[in-house]
């Protein structure tokens, strides 16, 4: 018996690679179809149900009635926003988990979302003159501080999932206490801030899309560059280093990218929990760990998830809006619990 792989096994490997790339294509196509269906379906439903011919007329700019206004000013930008934000959050989670080599690393569990919210709330309450376009920058500072603190403290002891979860939830708790203090100080204007804090896309339009766009696009482009280094980082610092990777540079770039991706979302939609934690795991379980494939698939899944959640949020109790945070918690919470259950088996 020879120790070299035989021709038969080599061709078997080829076949597997072939089916896996077929599988990826199939999944992406299926995902795009679902996303498209959701987006088009979403145009017809909402506070005011809109019949098909009216929607078509409005889309083709053949009418200028209130239906057209609803579509062009409310539903279309909101759907685009949901897709972009969902993709950004999911990629943020993938990158953060890759950089920290930790299944619980995510924008929510590291305190990045709460930290960014804290910074934005402080400016909102104490310096109301700051324009919304600057909110992502403020959020970036807060997110960096919060995420950096929890990652640093957790890494002092080897960055185990428990330590990271404990440090992250403590940092988040701290920021939440800060938010409370600021809100108590603000007094009666609390309600609008509070609604923003539970996360949601109600009443967001083109203006918000222009705020999110540069952050999300920058982050998603950075992901394309990060795919390869993230694969290598998964081998461990020393192995990656001997393979010629500048570990600390790429780790820093990755963390920064993850935070940039999530603070744009926080600025326009508030902290939306669970997506950044759960979507990467789902994506990984269907497509594997190669980041070149994982990142786009996660982005697609994130877009689908947030679009679906947002459509439900605005239609389930119409004309009232449900907060997206409840919907993501109802689905994401059990998922997280299941993950803990399985991992600690």
């Amino acid at each position: 018996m020879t120790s070299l792989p035989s021709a038969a096994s080599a061709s078997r490997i080829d076949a597997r690679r072939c089916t896996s790339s077929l599988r990826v294509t199939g999944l992406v196509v299926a995902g795009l179809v679902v996303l498209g269906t959701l987006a088009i379906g979403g145009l017809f439903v909402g506070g005011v149900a809109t019949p098909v011919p009216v929607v078509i007329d409005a889309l083709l700019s053949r009418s200028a009635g209130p239906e057209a206004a609803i579509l062009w000013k409310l539903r279309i930008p909101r759907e685009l926003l949901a897709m972009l934000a969902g993709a950004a959050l999911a990629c943020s989670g993938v990158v953060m988990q890759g950089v920290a080599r930790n299944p619980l690393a995510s924008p929510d569990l590291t305190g990045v979302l709460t930290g960014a919210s804290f910074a934005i709330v402080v400016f909102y309450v104490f310096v109301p003159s700051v324009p919304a376009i600057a909110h992502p920058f403020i959020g970036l500072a807060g997110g960096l501080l919060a995420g950096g603190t929890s990652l640093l403290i957790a890494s002092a002891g080897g960055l185990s999932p428990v330590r990271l979860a404990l440090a992250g939830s403590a940092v988040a708790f701290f920021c939440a206490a800060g938010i409370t203090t600021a809100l108590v100080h603000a007094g009666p204007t609390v309600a609008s801030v509070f609604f923003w804090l539970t996360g949601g896309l109600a009443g967001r339009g083109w203006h918000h899309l222009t705020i999110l766009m540069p952050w999300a696009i920058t982050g998603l482009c950075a992901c394309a560059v990060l795919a390869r280094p993230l694969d290598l980082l998964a081998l461990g610092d020393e192995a990656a280093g001997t393979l010629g990777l500048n570990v600390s540079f790429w780790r820093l770039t990755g963390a920064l990218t993850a935070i940039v991706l999530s603070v744009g979302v926080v600025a326009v939609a508030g902290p939306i929990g669970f997506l950044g934690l759960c979507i990467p795991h789902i994506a990984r379980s269907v497509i594997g760990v190669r980041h070149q494939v994982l990142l786009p698939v996660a982005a697609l899944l994130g877009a689908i998830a947030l679009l679906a959640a947002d459509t439900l949020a605005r239609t389930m109790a119409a004309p009232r809006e449900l907060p997206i945070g409840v919907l993501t918690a109802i689905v994401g919470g059990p998922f997280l619990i299941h993950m803990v259950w399985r991992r600690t088996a």
Partner: protein
Amino acid sequence: MNRLPFWPTAAITFCALVAFALLATLNGAADLGLRQGLDALFLGAGDNAGILWDIRLPRVAIGILVGIHLAISGHLLQSATRNPLTDPNVLGIAGGAMLAVMIFLLITVYWGQTDGSKLTSYPLAPLPFVALFGGLVAASLTYLIAWRAGVTPLRLVLAGIAIGITFQALGLGIFAAWGSTRMETVLLWLSGSLYARGWEHALHLLPWTIAGLLVLPVMVAKLDLLSIGDDAAATLGVNVGAIRFSAIALATVLASSAVAIVGPLGFVGLITPHAARRLVGSALAKSLPISALLGALLVTLGDLIGRIAMPPAEIPVGAVTALIGVPVFLMLLGRRT
């Protein structure tokens, strides 16, 4: 490691508690002179006696009770899970209690039994039970998820965090979905506040305190033995599963009833046990009473700071304890390797 003797330490902590409680009673938005205040307090003299007796004193008393509840709860959990980084928040108990109270308040408002514009007009008596129910559900879920032929501390903590953030997100969501008019009052409860608490609140809390303190002596010796590992404790005649379960149950009862009255107060239960163990060593017969005293002291102090930091607005005591407690906790976490 230098350790302090128990009785002097307890006496000093107790004196500090009394001093700060007195200070908190006398200090406030309508300031009284020391002389005037003491007269009003002890002789019932002057117009201010009413303010002191009906508004400030119950508030201080509730703060003390809540501090005792949370400190003992945290200490029990840390012993039972053999993990010094555990507390009612980490194990999801506070999240469960909060969600239950949210749902309960929502239902009472929905049925129109109260106008809901003031927290004081909500039905009060069922609150500890409602919160207890929520806390127990969360704790049992945590326990169940962590259970796999026995419970290990690591799984408990992970499961607790998962349960906690899920319940908290649901609670906040319900709250946000519900409209804006009562937001401020509930927000104050959510952040853990002693504002506008009266004697009736204290009376609803006291039975739980007494019941908890009566059960403790039975558990202390066995809980101590848990610290040397499950197998070693079991061969010394301790029913490890039973004692761990009952300690977590008692901790849940204490934490939930406190959350019902003042909302989730973070990090009191997490950091006071550490301080107590440092001062007098880890034997529970000594460290638990010190823990309780320190917890009462921390909440009293936090409330006092919250009231004098930026008047006339009040920072909720929960925010103050979190702002103090989180850095301490992160320091502990960073030092442990």
